[in-house]
């Protein structure tokens, strides 16, 4: 029962980060701030969903696979964020200032 409650709390929080990531993508003013919003969905959003599901897993193999999926998505997200932002700076894309 307790694990079910934990799963619900964790995966709900994860989905909240997905919502936040999408809102940030839609509302933030420039590429760099949108990148910032996006990586939250990769790291925390998927991470919390995976953590919630790992509690329900029938075997350690499934936990391992879920963890691997999360690490791979984070690796991809971080690398892409780095590549895109450096190229955007090189190209002189406008940086939002208050």
């Amino acid at each position: 029962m307790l694990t079910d409650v934990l799963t619900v709390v964790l995966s709900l929080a994860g989905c909240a980060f997905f919502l936040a990531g999408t809102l940030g993508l839609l509302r933030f003013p420039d590429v760099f701030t949108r990148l910032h919003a996006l990586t939250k969905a990769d790291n925390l959003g998927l991470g919390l969903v995976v953590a919630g599901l790992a509690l329900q897993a029938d075997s350690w193999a499934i936990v391992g696979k879920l963890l691997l999926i999360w690490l791979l998505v984070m690796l991809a997200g971080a690398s892409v964020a780095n590549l895109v932002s450096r190229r955007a700076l090189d190209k002189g894309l406008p940086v939002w200032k208050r």
Partner: protein
Amino acid sequence: MTLYYQVLALFLLVNLGAGLWRVLRGPTAADRMLAAQLFGTTAVAILVLLAQAERLAALRDIALVFALLAAVTAVSFVRRTWSEVKPDAD
């Protein structure tokens, strides 16, 4: 719990639909590409949720393949399409 996972999967699908606005709107090519990157992550989350809801282990393998290849499209965008030399046409 099955119902709960399905609610979350549906929510994430709707969330993905909202992100489409950024693909349509731009304004730079990078903005469109980043939205597609977010779709990839969302699809991975939907697949692991459905795998648990429907008790289909194979869906987790699909999520794993998506996670492994999540960077390829965006990398080819940065390395090929969005080059330093040409001015951004958007």
